[in-house]
């Protein structure tokens, strides 16, 4: 699960790099009014959805909104709980980030993204190696050239191998979940971070190196991707 980058005001159509940190909504009753929402600081994908909902609410549109990620279906759902007809609007590359890749037209009380959001990838499994001292990490691999090459001091690194099905290759290759700050859950229900005493917890850190998807076996359905994730000490 990736963190969105966000800075600047929480509302309005313009902000620094507003491509995937913003989602807007237009209501049928007031089609000339667009209500924008974005977190003012970078947020984890799920926290971002809650933030957008909160920002919308603060602007008191007619609808009472819920923005959720259906983890089972791996879709983002925007809906009103008071049957207000509306239409979400994607800003910048939001259509891919949130998964609303369909043509958004007309009005409805509930909208479900046509695609899996690229901000989150479903894994079949994941192995997380114990934390290594920073200097021992070999940064031989770089993802997207210069994007994922920064790693800094006072961090420890985990070697992570993510296993996923072929249908998720596009998401893994899109880059959001394999670059920058991410959270990797070994168990979706485990809400504690990885620690020596809790090795099944999630790893929340920065991807400082990542390889390319590698096919496991020859069925075409199991793939893996190696990453080095840096976590502050």
């Amino acid at each position, binding site marked *: 699960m*990736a*963190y*969105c*980058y966000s*800075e600047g005001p929480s509302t309005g159509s313009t902000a*620094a*790099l*507003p*491509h*995937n940190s913003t989602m807007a909504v237009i209501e049928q009753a007031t089609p000339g009014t667009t209500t924008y929402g974005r977190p003012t600081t*970078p947020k984890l994908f799920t926290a971002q959805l809650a933030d957008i909902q909160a920002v919308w609410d603060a602007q008191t549109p007619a609808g009472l909104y819920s923005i959720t990620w259906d983890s089972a279906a791996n879709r983002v759902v925007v809906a009103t709980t008071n049957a207000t007809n509306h239409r979400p609007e994607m800003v*910048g*590359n939001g259509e*891919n980030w949130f998964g609303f890749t369909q043509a958004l037209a007309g009005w409805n009380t509930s909208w479900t993204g046509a695609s899996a959001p*690229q901000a989150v990838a479903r894994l079949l499994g994941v192995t997380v190696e114990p934390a*290594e*001292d*920073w*200097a*021992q*990490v070999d*940064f031989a691999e770089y993802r*997207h*050239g*210069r*994007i*994922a*090459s*920064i*790693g*800094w*001091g*006072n*961090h420890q690194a985990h070697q992570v191998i993510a296993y996923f099905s072929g249908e998720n290759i596009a998401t893994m290759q*899109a*880059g*959001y979940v*394999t*670059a*920058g*700050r991410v959270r990797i859950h070994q168990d979706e229900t485990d809400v504690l971070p990885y620690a020596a005493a809790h090795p099944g917890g999630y790893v929340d850190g*920065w*991807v*400082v190196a990542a390889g390319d998807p590698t096919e496991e076996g020859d069925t075409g359905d199991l793939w893996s991707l190696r990453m080095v994730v840096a976590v*502050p*000490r």
Partner: protein
Amino acid sequence: MIYDAHKYGFGCIYWITVSGVPVVWIERVTGKALPAGYTTEDASLVIDDSAEVGIEQIDRDRGTAVSLSFGFKLLDTAEARDWMRRWSDQATLTTTLTVGGAVATVDSTTGWPGAGAFYAGLERITYTGTTATTFTGCTRGTAGSLAYEHKPGTTAQIITDRPRFWRGREVVLWATPVDASGYVAGSNLTDDAVQVWRGRIEAGPDRDVDGFVFQAQSLDRVLDQPLATQVTGTVADTSVKYAAKPGTQITVSIEAYDAAGVQQWAYVLEMLPFAAYTAGDMLSADAMRELIIAAWDNAVTAAGANANLSSMRFYKDKTIYTTQVKYLADAAINKIAQFVQINGTDVTSLKDPILSGTLTEIWIDLWKSAGDPSVPWSVAEPAGLNSLTVHVDEGDPADVPTTGMVWLGGNGVKYSFVYQYAATDGFELYLGGVIQGGYGTAPKLTPAQAVGMTATVQLVTAGSFPTLMLTTLENSGTGQRGTYDTGPRGKGYGIDDSAIDEDSFLSAAAPLGSMTGTLIADGSSFSERLGGALGLFRMAVACRPDTSATYRALKLTLVHTSPFGAGWTTTIVDADLLSHEGDPVVSVRRADSANTVKVLRKVGDSEDVLTATDRDQVDAVGSREATYMVPADDRETLFAAALPAIASHFASDQTAQAVEVRVPPWVLAEVGDIVEFVTTHPAVWTWNTSPGQVGYDGPARVVGKRMNLKTSQVTLTLLIGGGVKVRALSPAAEVQAFDVAAAPTRIDVPLKYLSHFAQSITEAGGPVKVLHYYRIGPESDIEGYTISAAAENAGLCRLTVSAITGAPVLSLASESYLTLPTVGGGDLTAYQATFAHIDDGTQWG
């Protein structure tokens, strides 16, 4: 800031603009709207081969930055090839194209399109129409180029449809953010973009196997380039000269009457003596008189008056010349009447009775009053050296100011003159109203001595030091670069004010900000002229981002270079240090600090020297001298300000140290900033708290910043008040052998650690404690050994164990290590304290 987003997976696309070329050279096509004036984006840019860019370090004594070059390649695309080809259309300017000229007159426009663009030198000019010999509707200085004057008779007269050369063109490297999926935010390429580097092409294009390679130098490197502002030549003549007026018309009417008043003959003589000259040509009074005599002869002949009138001559009466004309003696003539007009204005009107037929001369006054400058031919050459006619060998006579100073002589004796008037005639320079004087004890020159001497015109600029600096940066002769573009071409670098942070200069604090000085252009560079003043007061000019400007535009900025200052822009902590390519903090060797400082005040022939010495240092290490040349007007003001500045040098330079720190690009520190540097890294140690404490916590001045374009990794050079040690990581000795795993009496480690353990034991005066840990395992003082001796044994360092702390178990399989120092326990020696370990037991990698 786009670099903050790097933490969240963003990267950036680099692109460059080259002045005068309306193409955005970029790493990949984005489809975004391009900046105004740019018509296409071409995915041909390769910057990954470039070395780091930025400022390696400021030269604090010379006041300039030591900046790094930027290398880039344009791949062999159709667009790139089209711009690298030889031009297909060419024309030649036939008249001067002034800086604001909208019509360019050339020999022929045959073959040129009806509208388009052409290049004259570094400037790109668009036009909307043509005639047979002109380009009309010209818009000057397009696609980032700057407008300036182009003269026929120089290489600037060549006009082409493609750049004739690339050297000297400004290059700006931009970065536009791109997210982890490759998406470029915004609708314009410049949305969220920042400038990364700015400079000028110094070499290229050089052909490579797959493209064209360029090298460019940073904008601030320009300040070391000499300015070719000298105008020198040889004195050819010392006579007083006057500007010719070709339209000067002299009309003389002469009538002769007999005694009865009957007119015997009459002639009207029209003379245009200077018609063969052009306005501005310089003529001496003697030359004018000769021209008038010749014109008279022609007029007499033309009027058929040769039977009655003869030649004219000038007659000198003290300082005035009058004219005499002979007429042929005729007893019948009793009276001569004459009327003289100059340019239609009556000068004289006279009817002279002739008392006898023997008078054969008449006087014609071709002047109205003595010393009338409108008729300079009436003035006698004054005594002494009053004027200089110089045949210019170097420089453009047009750059010479109308009043100023000139030196005569060579490397030996120099004679200084001021002049009141200057005029040019091609490459001939005329200086009038010259007065010898000023400085020195040189004897008065005679006109005869002056002829043949070398004359050097002094191009002088006076004002406050900020003004002098800005003038030197902006002067282009066009008046278009900014407020301070007031001097002739060549007197400055012609840098546009959009690339200069003028406020940083104008807000310079006293003493530099308020002191006045005088620059005499002598072919020296900015650094040579003003670097001394900057170095003395610990300031420098560097190319750095203007953080408040759009795109964080890179500008020449006046910055401080002293290691101390109030307030800091950001804090750099351990977590900001990049460690994956090696040690993130390394010491940098600085030049030895001076202990004898000379401040040389020098303006023209006037020189004063102030010398200050740190006597203790000189006694100890000998004299290390630094000289700062400052062109200040007032001796007392300069020296009063210099003394505390020098004292500050002596006080801080002995302890100021430089370290290089590798950090991510989102650390907002720019050259000249004060930052707070808080680190536990052992490469620095705090000098002003407890002795020998590892790490540093205090202000630091950023005196260098360079970036690896491929990884965005930034290396800062910091000047700090602490001391620097060479790398002193705690020795972590891999255990090679031991006698008993659980309770050893001896442990063998590699021989290279012998000196460390032996030194520790020596300093402690007895046994020292060492820690035991497994590789990658945690360290603590729970497990360890007390070592009483260290000695070489069979190629290894053998440590003798005298006591055991905790229950360590040595293991070769788990890779046991021993390390210094322990923490706490009272046995921490000064030697051990210089190592990398800190009191939480963590280690540096």
